[in-house]
């Protein structure tokens, strides 16, 4: 929890607000820790070397970075602005296909590709926001789901462009800054995905701490009152929807670029639902919740799906029931609560 839970007068609200945006040492440790897997095992003391498994998991780690970015993009609209979407994979898929098609037919520079994918999914997101934001409640859930499915079915039938069920073939790999190549161990891929995810995390952190981010939370908590203090709710929401769509597009583009493949799987309902589950597990409305949810979900899935994918969803289902019934703020929120209780005791 934050300082707001502590009693006592706030002598200086300026410092209090500034303190909320300050970096916590744990955050710095976490992000530095993300670099650890890049350490070659040979640098470690001998007895540790055989336990050093990270380098064989680089591919999974790239996936985690990408999915975390995707989860953060959903958190911006869901956790901060209160807009539920069951079709967010549409933007992920748009970005993925945009990056794939660009690399196949046009140019291979990854960063430029990312930028184009972001522009495209952002632009589509902006247009979609005019439709989507007219809805609330179940209708909102259904319209996002419907639009997402429309795009997925459309991509499925537009075989000439997307390759249909076979996926997009012939995506060329480019060099980052024209020099760094993607290696077969996935080291470059991981660094690349991590860096992009980190930069966009910084951006999201900035957004959530900005006056704009505060207004979004206001709309989430009470949109009627926002209107009564003269806030342009619809424009705020359109803006964050656009930003979120662009970020989801970048996440999708990263997946295409780091795997050199792009399939219909990027657009599926399953992906939209998974990222929602991730957010709920981690706790909505907190960026680290999105990250923690992703790490837990992806590692658990990697572990369980080797055993039996059916079982995997059984446990996810139980976890969802438990979290929703007993931990309204997600796993991270629940841990926080336990921690507070333990400290008070």
């Amino acid at each position, binding site marked *: 929890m934050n300082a707001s839970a502590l009693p006592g007068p706030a002598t200086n609200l300026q410092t209090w607000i500034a303190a909320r945006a300050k970096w916590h040492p744990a955050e710095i440790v976490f992000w530095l820790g993300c670099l650890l897997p890049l350490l070659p095992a040979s640098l470690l003391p001998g007895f540790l070397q055989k336990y050093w498994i990270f380098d064989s998991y680089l591919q999974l780690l790239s996936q985690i970075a990408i999915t975390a970015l995707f989860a953060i993009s959903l958190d911006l609209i869901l956790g901060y602005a209160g807009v539920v979407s069951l079709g967010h994979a549409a933007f992920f898929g748009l970005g993925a296909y945009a990056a794939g098609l660009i690399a196949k037919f046009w140019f291979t520079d990854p960063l430029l590709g990312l930028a184009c994918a972001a522009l495209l999914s952002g632009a589509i997101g902006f247009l979609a926001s005019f439709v989507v934001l007219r809805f609330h409640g179940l209708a909102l859930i259904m319209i996002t789901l419907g639009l997402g499915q429309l795009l997925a079915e459309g991509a499925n039938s537009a075989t000439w462009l997307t390759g249909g069920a076979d996926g997009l073939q012939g995506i060329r790999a480019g060099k980052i800054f024209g020099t760094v190549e993607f290696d077969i161990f996935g080291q470059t891929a991981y660094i690349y995905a991590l860096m992009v995810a980190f930069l966009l995390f910084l951006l999201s952190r900035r957004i959530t701490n900005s006056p704009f981010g505060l207004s979004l939370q206001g709309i989430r908590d009470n949109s009627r009152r926002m209107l009564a203090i003269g806030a342009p709710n619809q424009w705020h929401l359109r803006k964050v929807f656009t930003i979120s769509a662009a970020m989801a597009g970048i996440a999708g583009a990263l997946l295409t670029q780091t795997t050199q493949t792009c399939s219909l799987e990027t657009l599926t309902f399953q992906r939209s639902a998974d990222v929602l589950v991730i957010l709920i597990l981690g706790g909505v409305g907190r960026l680290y919740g999105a990250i923690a949810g992703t790490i837990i979900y992806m590692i658990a899935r990697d572990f369980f799906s080797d055993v039996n994918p059916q079982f995997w969803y059984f446990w996810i289902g*139980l976890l969802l029931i438990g979290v929703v019934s007993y931990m309204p703020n997600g796993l991270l929120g629940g841990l926080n609560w336990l921690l507070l209780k333990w400290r008070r005791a």
Partner: protein
Amino acid sequence: MFTSIIGVLYDGFAYGMLLFVLSVGLSVTLGMMNFVNLAHCAFAMLGGYVTVSLINLAGWPFLATLPLAFLAAAAASVVLERALYRNLYGKSDLDQCLLTIGIVFVAVAGAAYIFGTLQQPIKVPEWLRGTWVVGNFTFGVYRAFLIVTGLVLAAVLILMLEYTRFGATVRAAVDNQRMARGLGVDVDRVFMLTFALGSGLAGLGGALAIEIVGLDHNFALTYLIYVLIVVSVGGMGSIWGSFAAATVLGISDMAGKYWVPQIGSFLIYLVMVGILMWRPLGLFGKR
């Protein structure tokens, strides 16, 4: 061309009646409690498995299993309502969605564990199989059975809602829950009964669906989307709405699959998005 139009209309209407039976319960409970119950089709799936098991393991006749499919789903829904749903009344749509999708995941995994992941074989009686041939047209007998069942159920539900005391309390609770409570209606009990009835109907729908669309462990997820489309297009809390929406969607899905199979379910989503853009609350929705 004319022959195929009749065929598509017939099959589509039968399919629509199936969707109606599957979804009408969800529409009414959503209208009453605003509870987004994504596990609705898990109850349908339960009904399906009850029917399959009774036929294949106990040798029951198909028709005799239907009441049990209804009862099993109704009973299961009451248990879940008491144990889990109750805590989330008045919470956000999202929380309700997530709880119930969790139940769906568990149900899907449970079904796969118990029954395996294969399509369940089912034997409907001889007199329900086969077709009638009238001139150039062929009509499936089972589909006629579906149409009759759907129409009878729709009529019974509408009459019950309009002319019985229970129906009046249900309508009051859907229209204005606070007012109904103020007038001394035990909304919680009415809701529980409606919920049981709706889930029971879903169970019946699940049993009826096997012959047409098959039954496997993923039924609870696959048909969830169709049911939600029916509810959101028809408008929550409206039996007529569900009936109209189910018909429209059944026929358009059938038409899409018949004439433009390459676009898959594209058409049904297009219809939904189009109708929602035109009327965000659905065809018959009031709120």
